[in-house]
């Protein structure tokens, strides 16, 4: 029974990583940059939801919507002020800027909310489900998280495969100049990608803090790094890869925590990543198409 319950916890934690990883992977696919501030957008999303629920007494659903709006705007603003001016600059300049933005967000959060942890109230108010006469319980948070992850995955796939903007995103991620020659406004497309990624970060933040309720200004950084790992693990730039990578990472983490060692679990997670990259450098679902000349 513990195996099953570990598996479920792993899938649930992995779903959160997957949702965050989607943001990393989409932005990487399109802007070819690693947005290291993405993890901190999660934290802002969680605080936005926390404040509206606690101080204003909003309904959880309303607070999630508010958090999505805040993060979407934040993502677009970060892109416009920090990354857009560096569009033609080297990738190192952008990377360092992203790290700078990450610290900026953490420190502003520290100024506003202080370092004392806030106890996040779960946005899910259902009873946990009990199976086998109470031997196996599944928390409502786990169920909602996994469901949210599945819904997001389906919506995102439909969005990129079927809609005009989604297809434009794929075109931009493959070949910016060619996309521009089709009449696609590349800058707008990049902004939209940041908006979508950051909206997902808000959802991830709320779900993460519903399961793990300690909210501090650095709440987003470790899950952010792990989700980035998940994105690379699954094949960066690939949406199904981010999903698969996230869920596998969650399962590996929970299993190492319960069967090997709590303190070593992170080390094990990253060791697995290194192994995968040694065997398949493009990640599990990553692919390289050679260009025909």
């Amino acid at each position: 029974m513990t195996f099953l319950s570990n598996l479920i916890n792993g899938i649930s934690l992995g779903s959160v990583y997957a949702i965050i990883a989607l943001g990393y992977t989409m932005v990487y696919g399109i802007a070819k940059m690693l947005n290291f501030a993405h993890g901190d957008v999660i934290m802002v999303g969680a605080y936005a939801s926390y404040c509206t629920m606690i101080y204003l007494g909003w309904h959880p659903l309303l607070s999630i919507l508010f958090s999505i709006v805040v993060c979407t705007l934040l993502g677009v603003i970060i892109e416009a002020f920090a990354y857009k001016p560096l569009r033609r600059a080297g990738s190192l300049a952008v990377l360092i800027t992203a790290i700078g933005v990450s610290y900026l967000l953490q420190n502003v959060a520290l100024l506003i909310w202080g370092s004392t942890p806030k106890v996040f109230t779960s946005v899910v108010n259902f009873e946990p489900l009990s199976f086998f006469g109470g031997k196996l319980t599944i928390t409502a948070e786990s169920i909602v998280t996994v469901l949210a992850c599945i819904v997001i995955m389906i919506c995102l796939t439909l969005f990129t495969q079927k809609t005009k903007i989604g297809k434009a995103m794929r075109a931009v991620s493959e070949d910016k100049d060619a996309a521009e020659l089709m009449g696609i406004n590349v800058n707008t497309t990049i902004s939209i990608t940041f908006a979508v990624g950051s909206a997902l970060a808000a959802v991830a933040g709320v779900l993460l803090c519903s399961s793990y309720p300690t909210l501090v200004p650095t709440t987003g950084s470790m899950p952010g790094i792990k989700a980035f790992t998940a994105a690379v693990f699954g094949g960066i730039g690939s949406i199904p890869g981010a999903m698969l990578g996230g869920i596998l990472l969650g399962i590996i983490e929970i299993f190492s925590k319960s069967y090997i060692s709590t303190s070593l679990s992170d080390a094990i997670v990253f060791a697995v990543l290194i192994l995968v990259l040694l065997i398949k450098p493009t990640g599990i679902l990553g692919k390289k198409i050679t260009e025909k000349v």
Partner: protein
Amino acid sequence: MLKVDNINVYYGKIHALKDISLEVNSGEIVALIGANGAGKSTTLKTISGLLHSKTGSITFMDENISHTEAYKLVSKGIAHVPEGRHVFLQMSVLENLEMGAYTNGRNIKDNIQNVFERFPRLKHRKNQIAGTLSGGEQQMLAMGRALMSQPKLMMMDEPSMGLAPILVEQIFDIIRDLHKAGTTILLVEQNAEMALRIADRAYVLESGEIKLSGTGSELAKSDEIKKAYLGG
């Protein structure tokens, strides 16, 4: 239709185009020939807005487009088939054509039919990923994709590059057909012989400057051209 007046383009400190002026009249095929690195592609990229000139002006249909961004020019009627085709390799043939119609949602079905009539091989492969097409098919796709915007002026950069001679003939036949159907064409080619054969007029570029210009047949007869580009 298109008037390029004294443009100067730089890549950093490199002066890539020096006082280039050229003109394309409605209904013409104009060829731009020259050796590798002469500035042919740079000229096309500047016209289509991917690069910008420091001086001079570019006028299209009586509108100054010198500073217009590339994505806005498609709906004004300029299509650019880039060197090396640049089709979207991970998208299907049909999706590539849809991207070509990004600014031209009207008649999209009819336009796809027209492209398939012109390039029957694309029809058979419409659901295939573009990365799996042969070089010739990718060139056809790149041209078909450009046609989806129903351009007034179509600029083609080295459409024959890397293709087998029989395919080169085919591509040039298609260019001739497009021209007959009323599309104005600005063609960049290293294959000077073929280009001069179909061009009404041509410009010869050398190290970023226009060295010669004239009608296609005049240039084909010129000794200088024969020596430099037509193998004696």
